[in-house]
């Protein structure tokens, strides 16, 4: 009985201390989108949660450089799908992405990746010309990439599967809106390959949301860099 009476104030004091700690981290973070798997641990400890990631890919950009998931390791990137002869939504979509690029052109923490969904037409020279017309001189900052640099017969199948995978990685299949490769959506991917946001480029409010949320992700990435996390 005496021991219980002794434990009660200790418990109260512990709770009070935990609730009033002014140094508790409260930094805002973007959600990790998509399905997640819970893997029980063999040692009986807390289960591991595995979040969905962008699938493995291998593309070629407008400079002829091969780019894979590793190209973007440690950096965030904004991805979209387009094609050079698109008369519909693509010009507006790329124009909106250009605004984001203009703000972060010198920021090494983020790069840009536009996939062509017309690999038969959008060859490397076409992509290079397209980039130049947008004013993108550095292919390492904004990749205009194709799955069919060498005339692969399944290049279009591959890019459509990739587009679908981006959205199904971000949304459960039942919620995915369809028209994945041509709906004007930007996908914000973090330094670990998780999709952290989807933004409708045709909606100004969504673009504003992207501008508001991008610094949050970059700040989170900063905390994972050695020498920055301790600040």
């Amino acid at each position: 009985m005496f021991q219980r009476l002794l434990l009660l104030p200790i418990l109260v004091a512990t709770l009070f201390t935990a609730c009033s700690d002014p140094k508790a981290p409260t930094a805002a973070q973007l959600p990790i989108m998509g399905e997640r798997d819970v893997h029980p641990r063999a040692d009986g400890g807390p289960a591991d949660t595995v979040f969905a990631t962008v699938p493995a890919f291998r593309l070629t950009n407008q400079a002829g450089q091969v780019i894979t998931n590793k190209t973007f390791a440690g950096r965030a990137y904004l991805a979209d799908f387009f094609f050079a002869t698109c008369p519909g939504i693509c010009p507006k979509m790329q124009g909106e992405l250009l605004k984001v690029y203009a703000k972060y052109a010198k920021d090494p923490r983020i790069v840009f990746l536009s996939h062509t969904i017309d690999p038969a037409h959008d060859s490397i020279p076409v992509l290079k010309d397209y980039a130049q017309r947008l004013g993108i001189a550095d292919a390492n900052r904004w990749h205009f990439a194709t799955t069919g640099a060498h005339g692969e017969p399944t290049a279009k199948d591959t890019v459509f599967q990739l587009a679908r995978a981006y959205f199904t990685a971000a949304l459960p299949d039942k919620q995915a809106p369809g028209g994945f490769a041509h709906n004007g959506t930007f996908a914000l991917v973090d330094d670990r390959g998780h999709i952290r946001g989807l933004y409708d480029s045709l909606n100004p409010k969504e673009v504003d949301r992207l501008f508001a949320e991008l610094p949050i992700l970059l700040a989170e990435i900063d905390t994972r860099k050695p020498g920055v996390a301790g600040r």
Partner: protein
Amino acid sequence: MAAPEPAPPLTPPLPRFPKPPLHLSISLPRLSKPSPDLPNLRHASPNSRPGLPNPGITRKNPSSSSSRPRHTHAGYPPYLWDVKVSSKIAWRGAIVACAAWVAACSSPNKPISEKQPPSPATTAEMALMARHDSLMAKEDELFALKSKIAATHSPAAGPYLRGIAAADAAMMSWMHQYRAPDTTAAPAARLAYFQQQQQVLARVSQQFRATMDSAALFISQHPATAAPGTPASPK
């Protein structure tokens, strides 16, 4: 016996200020004919306070308007015809209105503003782009069907795969040949181009629908392929 004089007040009397003139009236329903002594404030402008000029609009003094026949309703004071606008202001207003009218009508090539309805050519272009976007959204579905058909490894799948390839090629061919006329082109020429392209795209749309229906039927006849595919991992 004389009455006693009233006691003097304990405090000196307050100075009497002249009663301020009545400038505002409470707008209650008038149940009776208003007093002719009260000014008619219905047409009073903010500048019509005493001592301030009321530029442009002068109100006739009711007492001096006997030379003009008064049109009153049931004895009420006149309203609109009680206001006289100076000729100078009237001329200025007329000139400004004419200038605005001329400016609005003298530019046949003026850009389309948000308040104006789009031209027939612009409407036709928007309809064309809507159909294009709709078909591009179906491209996803087309390639999803293609992957399901290919996964059957059925020798009968060949025509369906070729049909999907042909539908995709028709769509891509349309986009590669499409050249939207410049907005400075003649409106009739723009309208004719968009209408002609709409017909071409309508045929592509029919091809899409027939191909997708056939592919869906083929997949339904091969239940093993109807299961949803796993997320792709293109590499």
